[in-house]
């Protein structure tokens, strides 16, 4: 069986024509990406906004040509065999506002099912089963323009699931959802995968905890390039050497910068927040043994410890290590 998704040296460059004397500009949204995702995998693509995740998905969904390189879905070339690729895929995006406001949920799903050759009987049977399964049965007759964001995204997920794609692309599927609905959505995704072990999902997210919870393997993408690719556990294990601590102190007002520049602290990274007269310092040390020295330096600056905890390494830490900045910082710097 061929890989569900395979890319080789995949690159997408956006070119901006020169205007009013400004030179032509180009932006590498996806840069030399090699990926291989096997059937049955729930694969996560992690990165900040603007990292190239959506561009990569749009290429794989046949909505965008790559500038160079090769991409295959189920062994089919996305440029040469795009019509056959489309029979095997579907895509759902977060914050998606698709549909026609005057149609009801059930009618809307039926309309989209007709684009995939389902008979009306089969389509309505699947739709009714999924509406029930995902808690929307009572709202089947509600018009789209009256749906909450959460209900709309549940409907969108059903739209993606109901056609039975071999490969489903989920682009930030929990974007903008409240915690409860996001948790439900993750449950739906897991359930759908569990129904058939040959199904494949490529999920993009900038919520690293979501990827850690859901994905069999993840790739970290930053500035269009894949920086790391493995199981979440393996990525975390590879970066476990660092010890991350969080200390809350009083009496350290305005001293965080001095701590950061203090060579004796031996920190590879230090962030500080001040709130209500307390300073919370989060720092990364080469190992646990360096903690005593770091705490001594804080005490020397007048800091009194209120709370101390050791932080378990997460994908967020892995991302920081690989990209040199957090997801939030990367998004801020790309604005």
């Amino acid at each position, binding site marked *: 069986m061929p890989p569900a998704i395979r890319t080789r040296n995949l690159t997408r460059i956006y070119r901006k024509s020169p205007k009013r004397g400004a030179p032509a500009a180009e932006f590498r949204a996806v840069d030399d990406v090699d990926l291989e995702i096997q059937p049955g995998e729930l694969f996560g693509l992690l990165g900040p906004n603007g990292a190239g995740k959506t561009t990569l998905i749009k290429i794989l969904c046949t909505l965008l*040509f790559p500038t160079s390189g090769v991409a295959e879905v189920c062994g089919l070339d996305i440029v040469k065999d795009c019509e056959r690729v489309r029979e095997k895929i579907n895509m759902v995006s977060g914050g998606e506002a*698709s*549909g026609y406001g*005057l149609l009801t949920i059930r009618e809307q799903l039926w*309309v*989209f099912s*007709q*684009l*995939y050759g389902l008979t009306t009987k089969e389509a309505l049977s699947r739709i009714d089963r999924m509406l029930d399964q995902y808690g929307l049965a009572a709202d089947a007759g509600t018009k789209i323009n009256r749906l909450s964001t959460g209900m709309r995204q549940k409907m969108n997920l059903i739209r993606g699931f109901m056609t039975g794609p071999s490969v489903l692309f989920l682009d930030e599927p929990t974007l903008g959802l409240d915690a409860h609905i996001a948790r439900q959505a993750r449950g739906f995704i897991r359930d759908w995968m569990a129904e058939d072990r040959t199904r494949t999902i490529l999920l993009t997210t900038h919520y690293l905890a979501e990827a850690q919870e859901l994905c069999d393997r993840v790739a970290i993408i930053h500035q269009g390039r894949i920086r790391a690719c493995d199981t979440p556990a393996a990525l975390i294990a590879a970066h476990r050497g660092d010890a991350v601590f969080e200390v809350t102190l009083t009496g350290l007002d305005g001293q965080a910068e001095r701590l950061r520049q203090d060579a004796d602290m031996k920190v590879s990274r230090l962030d500080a927040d001040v709130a209500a007269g307390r300073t919370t310092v989060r720092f990364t040390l080469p190992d646990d043994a360096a903690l005593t020295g770091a705490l001594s330096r804080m005490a020397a600056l007048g800091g009194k410890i209120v709370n101390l905890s050791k932080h378990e390494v997460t994908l967020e830490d892995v991302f920081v290590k690989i990209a040199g900045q957090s997801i939030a910082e990367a998004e801020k710097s790309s604005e």
Partner: protein
Amino acid sequence: MSSLANNLRAASARAWIRVVAANRELSWVFFETFLPAMTTAGYVLVYRALGAPAEYEAYVILGGVMTAFWLNVLWGMAAQFFWEKDMGNLDIYMMAPISRMSILLGMAVGGMLGTAMRSVVILVLGIALFHVRFEIGGLAAAFGIFLLSMTALYGLGMMLASLFLLFGRGAQRWVEVAQEPVYLMSGFYFPIANLGFTAAAIASAFPLALGIDAIRQTALGSDTGFLPVGVEAGALAALAVLFFLLARRMLRLMENRAKRDGKLTLKWQ
């Protein structure tokens, strides 16, 4: 290659949206029937005030009927890819395993059903208020020519739709520019023979000009036709085939260019 049955399913679902939406938003009945009917009545009254021959009033009624289809092709079909992009539906249509023409066919059929209502209102208005008389014997031929005209016209609409795939809002400006000159060149309110041979020949490249002219000759017994009905019907059939083939080619070409330039699904474009 997508199967014919799948494409017909997609087309009928897309047409169904138009019909259902129209039934649930009844304000369109006022805007789409009453207001255009008033415009047509206005032209009739102008001709009447000028003492024009009675057949000119009938020309206007038929022109009013056909105008509705032209506007539907422009705004209900050609521009529809742009609206779909704006609503967030275009991605879903473009990555579905169906021909783009089936989606456009669905839009055309659904739109024609709605437009037919407007046309019937104008026709009834013409018969009831302005006593327009039709040649009963020519109605079958007129209906055949109407179908040929619609096939060619919606083929043209598919070509225009391909422009929206690539140029988005920019294509909307072009269509706005095209709207009024087409009113003039297609003879909605007068026989195109009045334009003179050269201008009428140029206007004949637009299917509605030939269609209206031929329908006037068959349904009204008009003797002011530009060309014999048989020639006009043959030209319409040729245009229908030509536009269909060109539309298929242009849709593929424009989609590929839009995918290359990254413009296919950018919402702000």
